[in-house]
């Protein structure tokens, strides 16, 4: 049973998507992402099962399971729960040991995390009473312009003159969109403006913690190349995005699980 005991899992249940990573020592042997849908509990079971199925494993093969993310406490099969803030630090630390800063933008919140030397949280800040800098904001804006959330990032790159999207409140930004649209502004410029405004908001928030090299961008929104570009502009340094940015939280949870066995 030596082999089995080295296999661990991290499950990250976010507001928008559920993610799982299975780790064998330091190797990711399987990962999977599904929409969270209506029941966080079901999403947790489902994403775990589908990830296990990929490698023909069963729950019994996993020696330790850690849940993280917004719905972490609903993961009944987890041995332990940890916040996604620690997990993103851990996950990034494993992939890029010299990284000192994580920008994590998820569906409902955004965080800027300083990673300590040992891969723990050194400092962090998370959006408080305003959702303007979150994935939800982008989603609402995409919907207003009848656009696919997965495409708006690349659309934004084609905006040669980003609109000034000045509203800080999601709801008012939305009506600003409608106005710009009515005025005949191009989608490209509107999306460029939206991404730029949102990047700015995240950077203002993150300045409390500071941005030290290297900066890594994680969470579902990190797949949005427009957001990466505008964050780079605002932060003034290169920002790295891991191959699968949305699984970094689950990876971090799996790493902590590995350290427990």
């Amino acid at each position, binding site marked *: 049973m030596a082999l089995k005991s080295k296999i661990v899992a991290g499950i990250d249940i976010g507001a928008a998507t559920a993610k799982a990573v299975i780790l064998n020592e330091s190797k990711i042997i399987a990962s999977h992402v599904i929409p969270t849908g209506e029941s966080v509990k079901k999403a947790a079971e489902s994403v775990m099962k589908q990830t296990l199925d990929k490698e023909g494993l069963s729950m019994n093969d996993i020696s330790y399971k850690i849940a993280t993310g*917004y719905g972490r406490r609903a993961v009944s099969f987890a041995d332990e729960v940890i916040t996604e803030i*620690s997990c993103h630090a851990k996950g990034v630390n494993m992939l890029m040991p010299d990284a000192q800063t994580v920008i994590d933008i998820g569906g409902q919140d955004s965080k800027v995390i300083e990673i300590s030397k*040992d891969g*723990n*949280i050194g400092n962090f*800040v*998370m959006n408080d009473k305003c959702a303007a800098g979150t994935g939800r904001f982008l989603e609402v804006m995409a919907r207003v312009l009848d656009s696919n959330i997965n495409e708006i990032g690349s659309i934004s790159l084609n905006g040669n003159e980003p609109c000034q999207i000045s509203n800080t409140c999601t709801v008012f930004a939305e009506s600003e969109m409608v106005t710009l649209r009515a005025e005949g502004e191009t989608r490209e410029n509107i999306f460029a403006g939206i991404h730029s405004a949102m990047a700015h908001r995240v950077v203002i928030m993150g300045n*409390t913690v500071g941005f030290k090299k290297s900066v890594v961008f994680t969470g579902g929104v990190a797949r949005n190349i427009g957001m990466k570009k505008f964050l780079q502009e605002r932060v003034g340094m290169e920002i790295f995005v891991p191959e699968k940015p949305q699984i970094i939280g689950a990876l971090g949870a799996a790493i902590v699980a590995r350290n427990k066995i």
Partner: protein
Amino acid sequence: MAFYKELLTLCAFEEDEIADQKQRIERTFEILGLGPEDMERAIERINKFYAVELLGVRKALGIWFKELFDLVLAKEEGKNVIYFGYPPPLLIGYIIKYATKPGNDYYVGCPEAVLCQVLGQLFDKLNPVLEAGEALGFPPGHGMCSMLQNRNGALDMGILPVPDLAIGVSYYCDMGPKADELMSHRHGNDVEYLDNSMDSPWGTWPDYDPEKIKFMAAQINKLFKSLKNKFGIEITDEVYEKGNESIMQYFMAVYGLNHHISADPCPLSLADAQLILNLGVGSTGVTIDEGFEAVQILTKEVEKRVEEGYGVVPKGAPRVLIYLPSFVDPAFNNLLNEVGLAVPITAALLPPPETPPPYPFTTIAEKLAERMMYSGVFHSAYGAIKFFAEGLKSTKVDGVIFNYQHNCRPCVCRSKLSKDYLDKETGLPMLLLEMDFYDNRNYSASSLQTRLEAFAEMLLAKKAEANKGIV
């Protein structure tokens, strides 16, 4: 059985006390619209959030109820009613109460604090009151804290007696007096203002412009004169001294309790501690008579917990100082313990610095004014932060939670300054949290929990790193 008996028994009321007070209790609950369902909810919440196995905690809960009865019925019972604003001029309030003690025909207190605690934290039924306040022109997002919303809202709903005199206080925040003006416009009550401005240059505390003391003393004397003319209340030297003594006795007992709470493992939850701490803030009535006893009982019980090694968190848990125990919800206060943080102390109990106040004032009014100025928080942002930083240095904690009322401009302006300055002075990790005094309507509980847990994880990791351990 009366529908409220179980609840009040839980809150350390004696059977014959409940029988004696029947009419008062029922009338209060009638005015507030609290029925059997509300009692059930309160029982459930109290059992969930407070250590009801401790008689001291139950006594404290009982005192809050007595404060509520005294407040709501004051006018019907023929008392003169004097309100003061928040943050309250505690010492002045206590002294007025002390002066009127013999006849027992005055209610003197800060009604919003009582409503926040009892109708809010215990019954979870403050929202309609806050909404009534909003409807009067204190909408959310307008820089109005829920304290301002709730007193005016309650008066408009007719669930609070209209005071004979309101003492408006602007030495910290300029909005209380505007809320008082709105109140007196609508209800016709008299108002006396205790004015001062929390403005002194950065870096000057504990020094200040003595003119401020003279001005505030003149305001206090004006209040005293009005008390004499209107009610015949005289604030003599003797009243001042004796009143002062009785409060100091109470607060020294609280300091004593706090000494035990700071044991490792931490023996008392923040929710329980807050019940006692806020008693001193929210009321000047029953607290003086019965609060001291409750604190003494609780202190003994906590001592016993310490002897037995009982903790609300494991031994060695990261220790944090919280700026202000939350009025929002006992759930928040308990959350700190749930995520594994020991909370041995709050800012209100930090020891004062050793430097004495710089000017030797002698009249009662001047002495009162100077004591407020010296407390730092009414001096300036610097005064508040410096006082805090000095206190922190004498306290062994691993981190600080600076929770501030997001609508409170003095707090907000200070929050980031505090983080920067404390970081430089103490190097302690600090978590900034936006709250309101009572506003479960405007925070996301799960996001709050994530931040607190992450802060706990960070402090644990830092402790482990410092011990060269590996998480």
